[in-house]
């Protein structure tokens, strides 16, 4: 927050921080996420293998032959693959979320601020898009273009853009109708200045929450596409790919499934918990409460 909105808004953000850190469950989420991020960053440094390196140790259990978490059916080191998988998941999710939020802020902002036929057009388009189940969009995109990194990103943006757009639209419309915006308009402030200075900052809190849920959603969708064979494919170290490949060993070598499976769950769950905590902390109605 910048100097000119100090006073009220500074204490608002302090209040938000206090309430967020008072929430034990979100702190647990934050801790798990931090650990996973550290693993993702330092995994390749501490590991002696690379994620697509084939070794002679086929399906050995954890802590055997120098493989901390064992190896998969091709003798690849699971620890290395999992840490690379976390990094891939997070990278994809962050890029997708960034693009989705940019699209959402611009389209939703335009629709919400100007209203009228622009709003109508954008809203009807969203209505249409919503009727299509998300996997179908992914199927269509990926079956037509194949599966490179950026195509997976495109498919995920196409499944995620409308919720950010819809939310930002609603948020802008709500803030727009507030009295102080009327007052700014009445005193002759330019439209661009109203959008950037008066509406923008106040429409941000809901975006932060959506940010968290979009990241979690993108990680989930990416793994779903990979599992179904329409996202990343072997030998890419995606958690979904690893889980998909582990299905044949569920009976004899369950760790091949449980390790990437639990990492994926911890990753999405930690972000969902943080998002939940943020939602409660940012809600002005809950202000002052614990």
């Amino acid at each position, binding site marked *: 927050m910048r100097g000119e909105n100090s006073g009220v808004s500074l204490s608002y953000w302090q209040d938000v921080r206090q309430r967020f850190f008072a929430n034990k469950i979100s702190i647990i989420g934050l801790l798990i996420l931090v650990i996973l991020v550290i693993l993702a960053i330092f995994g390749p440094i501490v590991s002696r293998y690379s994620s697509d390196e084939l070794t002679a140790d086929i399906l050995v259990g954890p802590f055997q032959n120098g493989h901390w978490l064992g190896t998969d059916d091709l003798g690849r080191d699971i620890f290395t693959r999992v840490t690379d998988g976390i990094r891939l998941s997070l990278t994809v999710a962050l890029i997708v979320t960034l693009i989705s939020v940019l699209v959402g802020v611009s389209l939703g902002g335009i629709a919400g601020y100007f209203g009228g036929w622009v709003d109508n057009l954008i809203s009807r388009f969203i209505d249409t898009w919503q*009727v299509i189940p998300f*996997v179908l969009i992914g199927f269509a995109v990926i079956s037509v273009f194949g599966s490179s990194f950026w195509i997976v990103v495109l498919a995920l943006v196409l499944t995620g853009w409308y919720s950010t757009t819809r939310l930002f639209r609603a948020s802008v419309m709500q803030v727009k109708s507030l009295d102080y915006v009327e007052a700014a308009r009445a005193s002759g402030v330019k439209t661009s200045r109203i959008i950037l200075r008066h509406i923008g900052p106040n429409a941000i809190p809901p975006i932060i929450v959506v940010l968290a849920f979009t990241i*979690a959603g993108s990680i989930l969708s990416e793994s779903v596409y990979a599992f179904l064979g329409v996202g990343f494919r072997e030998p890419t170290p995606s958690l979904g790919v690893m889980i998909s490949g582990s299905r044949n060993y569920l009976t004899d070598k369950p760790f091949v*499934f449980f390790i990437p499976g639990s990492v994926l769950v911890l990753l999405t769950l930690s972000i*969902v918990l943080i998002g939940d905590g943020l939602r409660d902390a940012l809600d002005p109605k809950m202000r002052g409460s614990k």
Partner: protein
Amino acid sequence: MFLVVWAATTLMFALFFVIPGDPISLKSGEKSIPPEILKNIEAKYGLDQPVIVQYGRFWKNLFKGDLGYSYKNEQSVNVILGDGLSTSARLLFWAAVTQLLIAFTVGLVSAIRRGSLGDRIATIFTVGVQGIPVFVSGLLAQYFFGVLPFQMNWDWLNFFKPWPTEWTFGVIPIEGWRGIVLPAIVVALVDAAFIARMLRSSLLEVLRADYIRTAFAKGLSPRRVWLHHALRNALIPVVTVYGTSIIAIFGVAVQTEKVFSLPGMGSTIADAALLQDSPVVLGLAIVVIAFGAFINLIVDLSYALIDPRIKVENRQVS
């Protein structure tokens, strides 16, 4: 609503037919084919025509109830659809039953006994389920209710059984009911948790209303107040989210069918998408979209049943 379905279908058509993507190599198996033969094949499927002509023919066939033919093996999409639909419909039916059971039990109990141990467990469960991908919970279910009981020789706990083959009344299996349990629960779980949460917060909101206090003050039994006064009013927002969540159930069903190797619509579409067999994907997608829109319409109409204050003609049905 029809406008939305039309637009969504057109969008799907555009995704598959306007974007470059060539179904012919599927038949030829990636070999290079002489240009004359290529032309013949294109003419056979009408792919040499302008997009707008293809689009017109697509709708003409659709109105005749013809969804087209697979590029891969010339099989009619209608037949492929019929095969997958029965499995998916049964799966969804049992999932819906399970979902309502779980959602209402969990939602009601955690609202009535707010702050109790049960409520706290329910909250953890409902948040936790959001972070678990469906295919992971499917595999977990297979492990804990299939692999593990098998290894331990606990046959009573083994629910990892084949999907039943014979049914009475369309949905009741003649034998092997255990085969339905896991897939149905896995499909149901995500939305059940979501609905339970909505129901809980909606109920807690309603409970603060004056008429609830009045009803208790009149000396009505708590059971009557809960079920007649509170639940009915709390249902309205829940029904709203139900309409939008029903579309997402398709994604859930695809993963479940894949995990449990069920020959349903979802796994059929997924396999066809991998092969770039566009007529099959498009044909099945239309059915899925129309079905989703139909359920949404029913949900919209049911507002009037739950809440007589809402008149149907005043609502925009979309």
